[in-house]
């Protein structure tokens, strides 16, 4: 059992209170906007998916509103905490180690985290397809019942398709995912079982390219042009543990968007 799983309620709450959060990620412009809850951009129908900082989260039918909010808040919090600690472009392994540590502290149980070099089977590939391929691998490794795995893959594909046609969420996602020479993003497919358990398959992509990136997800890359790393995980939310920190997380995330005014006062 890891350290986070043994933490007491008081220790978890203290962690949430102390956790330092980045106001911005490392993007093309160095300072993209990431503004608390306003960065939660529903793609179309909140039942389908949302762009949360550099995370594209897709929800299967049946995930409760509370669980969706908990998933989105967890990922936003963990992303901002990891962004504060590490530059995902230069320290991607450490970035994901901290991201996973924060998720674990909030009550997410990781069953199968893997991080390695990604090699496409095709000479040309897009990051959108790489992300879906990695999610597919995470779903297979999770050995979820057939219909559940199928539903997760379907909602992930649907969320990516929806993102293609929605300018604003796509821009938010890309501005959050971009690094100087590449991008760092995650796709998550979430399902809730009959007993209320929340399962999430995550595919993570971190890549750097020899040319400037303007289209993170849908550009067709020649595999020789990019160095890509992949992370995959199957996460299960311990709702009882998360309930202990929910209020603290929401308080930290909903701290005023007016921080931007304070940051750039005149």
């Amino acid at each position, binding site marked *: 059992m890891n350290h986070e799983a043994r933490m007491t309620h008081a220790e978890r709450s203290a962690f949430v209170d102390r956790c330092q959060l980045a106001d911005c990620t490392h993007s093309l412009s160095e300072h*993209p906007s990431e503004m608390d809850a306003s960065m939660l951009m529903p793609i179309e129908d909140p039942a389908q998916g949302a762009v949360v900082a550099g995370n594209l989260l897709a929800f299967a039918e049946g995930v409760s509103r509370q669980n969706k909010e908990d998933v989105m808040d967890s990922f936003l919090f963990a992303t901002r905490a990891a962004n504060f600690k590490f530059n995902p472009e230069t320290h991607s392994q450490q970035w994901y180690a901290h991201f996973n540590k924060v998720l674990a502290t909030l009550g997410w149980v990781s069953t199968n985290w893997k991080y390695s070099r990604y090699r496409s089977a095709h000479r040309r590939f897009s990051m959108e397809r790489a992300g879906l391929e990695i999610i597919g691998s995470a779903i297979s490794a999770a050995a979820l019942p057939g219909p559940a795995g199928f539903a997760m893959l379907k909602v992930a594909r649907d969320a990516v398709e929806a993102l293609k046609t929605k300018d604003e969420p796509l821009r938010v996602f890309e501005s959050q995912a971009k690094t100087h020479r590449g991008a760092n993003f995650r796709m998550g497919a979430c399902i809730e079982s009959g007993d209320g358990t929340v399962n999430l398959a995550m595919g993570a992509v971190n890549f750097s390219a020899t040319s400037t990136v303007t289209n993170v997800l849908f550009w067709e890359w020649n595999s020789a042009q990019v160095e890509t790393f992949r992370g995959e995980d199957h996460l299960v939310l311990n709702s009882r543990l998360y309930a202990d920190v929910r209020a603290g997380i929401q308080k930290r995330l909903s701290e005023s968007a007016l921080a931007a005014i304070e940051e750039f006062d*005149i």
Partner: protein
Amino acid sequence: MNQGLIEAQVSAGCMLFMHSECSALRKSDTADSVLYTQLAATKRHSRFANTSAWNEAWLAAFTRFGWALEAHESCCHRPARPLPYSVWGLLQDSLPAFMPVALLSAAESVCVRSFERHPDQPAIGLLGREALEPAVASVRHKPQAAQKVVLQLGLLDANGGLSVGFITFTQASGFKGNVLFEPLQVTDLLSDVQLHFYSLRLMESVYAPLRLKVSEALDHRRAQRVSALMGVDHVG
């Protein structure tokens, strides 16, 4: 495109042109963002002594306030054609594909007409004070002749997309009058011409919580920092 389709104002060191068909809310958000971000950048860095850091701070503020950066391009060069021509020519020489050429041409025409009719209007004085390095006394107590130009040009299209051109160079002799149209001499250039172009789009959901605070913060500053071009539709 006739003059009636363009609204124009000087906002600190930015010449801002807005398509009249763009929504009133987007025009006012754009005008406030353009002014606020320049002031925020100037509070952090000198516009003239540390232009690169100033520009980074300006862009950081712009994106932090909800403007998504869709495209950008930078270049640094000596003019391709023999001078003289004005800053308009410098911009047009290097204009990337994402910049709205027609809107830029229309904006130039609007400016030409406005300054022909009102050559001494307050807007040009304001732009000179904000975009031109103030002259300082040298060790011999003579006014410094060389002058750095740090000028922005903003173009808000009918669909709410904002394109910004950022131009900076130093010339040996200071501008005598209108920074927008005074002819430049190649022998006068003491530096390369640096150009940055940005294509930006406002994310309403991000800016909305900030709108009132930004507007209030600017309430007492607009009078000194914003001036509509005369003979052009007034920007409310």
